[in-house]
């Protein structure tokens, strides 16, 4: 039996196919103005990789910001539940999940059974979300993916006076005009980002293991700064792309639902 999880985020749409034992295939595409179209495209891609017919998918759970717009979903589940499910499945020792998406940041605390104990979200302020990095990358005229490597080459981080994306942007322009290297600016940007996420993390009772998911998990400079700030090692997902965690959780929940119905 094949099931699917579809996670429509603000920036990317993700699909994971699961057969009850292993992750068969996955896809990550840019979200579309019409979320339904993005969902279809992501599903097609994943099906093509796994050589699976869409008709053979027994059940699909939709999640994420656009979860209600997944045309082929049989059910919708919150991102909090899906991220918890995915992370706990991959790493049963995980008790805290830091998920940083394109326009929000969530910190989820799990109990020993993998159930959600507490969670805090920031979706009100762009600082501390992927959007902050996106804006900064644009000002620095580099690809978002390059920001992390650039930061690692920095040796003297600039300080940003305020966490606010708008003020930070003005600061970065000022530093660029002063001739400060992009590397040192990128390092300062990653530090500021980590600091802001750290504020949210400290609102929950942090328990080990701590893992990081979402697109920003791929920015290893931010993760390193966050580890430094929190004084602990953060588990990095190696077997699955951390950006797929929500869709994976959705697929796992889809599988559970079908099993329960049988």
């Amino acid at each position, binding site marked *: 039996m094949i099931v699917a999880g579809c996670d429509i985020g603000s920036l990317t749409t993700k699909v994971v196919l699961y057969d009850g034992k292993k992750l068969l295939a996955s896809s990550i595409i840019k979200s579309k103005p019409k979320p339904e179209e993005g969902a279809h495209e992501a599903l097609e891609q994943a099906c093509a990789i796994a050589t699976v017919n869409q008709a053979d998918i027994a059940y699909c759970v939709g999640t994420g910001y656009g979860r209600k717009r997944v045309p082929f979903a049989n059910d919708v589940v919150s991102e909090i539940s899906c991220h918890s499910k995915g992370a706990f499945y991959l790493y049963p020792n995980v008790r805290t999940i830091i998920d940083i998406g394109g326009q929000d940041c969530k910190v989820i605390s799990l109990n020993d059974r993998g159930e959600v104990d507490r969670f805090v979200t920031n979706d009100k302020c762009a600082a501390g979300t992927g959007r902050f990095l996106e804006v900064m990358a644009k000002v620095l005229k580099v690809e978002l993916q390059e920001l992390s490597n650039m930061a690692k080459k920095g040796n003297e981080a600039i300080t940003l006076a305020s966490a606010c*994306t708008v003020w930070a942007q003005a600061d970065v322009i000022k530093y660029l005009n002063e001739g400060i290297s992009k590397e040192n600016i990128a390092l300062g940007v990653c530090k500021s980002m980590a600091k802001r996420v750290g504020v949210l993390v400290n609102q929950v009772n942090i328990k080990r293991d701590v893992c990081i998911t979402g697109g920003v998990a791929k920015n290893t400079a931010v993760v390193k700064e966050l580890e430094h700030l929190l004084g602990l090692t953060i588990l990095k997902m190696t077997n699955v792309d951390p950006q797929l965690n929500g869709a994976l959780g959705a697929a796992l929940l889809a599988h559970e639902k079908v099993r329960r119905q049988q």
Partner: protein
Amino acid sequence: MITAGFDIGSTTAKAVVLDSDSILGKVIVPVEGSPKDAAEVLLEAVAKQTGIDHNMIEALCGTGYGQKNIPYATMMESEIVCHAKAALHLDKDVRTIIDIGGQDAKVCRIDAFGNVQRFVYNDKCASGTGRFLEITADVLEVPIEQLAQLDTQGTKEIALSNQCVVFAESEVISLINSGEHMGNIVKGLHRALASRVASLALGIGIEQRIAFTGGVARNAGMVKALEGVLKTTLVVHEYCQVMGALGAALLAREKVMNRVAS
């Protein structure tokens, strides 16, 4: 006796020149380059407009962000004290001052003698400042001076779901794309900024009469929106944008008078 007040802000520099207690002139220039450059430009503009050069100014009080860089300044005073001084000078019944500038917002409660009793300040988050309107006006591709006019063309107020400038920017883009009337969007933007500043004001409580000052107070749509949210009327003086400079000039005058008296 000629005295002057120079208020070097982050986006504009303002001067008020007094002859005894009558206002000889007010000058507003944009800040380009360093605060010192701005002060020089301001001095020239004052000379051009009022015929008063620095030799004729008996006392010059500096205030604002760049107060330390004003040539010929004989004294300095904090913005808050200057604002309180000016507000009370223009209207002896003012007890609350709400000031929205380009990069900050301040709310200040004063007593009948102009002593500052309570005071709150936001310069951490751009969404509660004039920058919110600057950025969103840019997205709407209209000069900021036109916002008030557009506001009057709106027939209903769009409730924005985002407060953060960065997120509101995207929201405005999707509203434009969905064909929403510009006037309605502007009404919504005014309301959003008003709510933000109102919550700052209500944090320390407001007492009648309330003066609305700063560059943003020149926008009639904003005045109406803030009056609506606070459910009260606001006093907007023609000198609302140069309150800091006016207060500084008045303080300079006071100092000279005290010197003469002793």
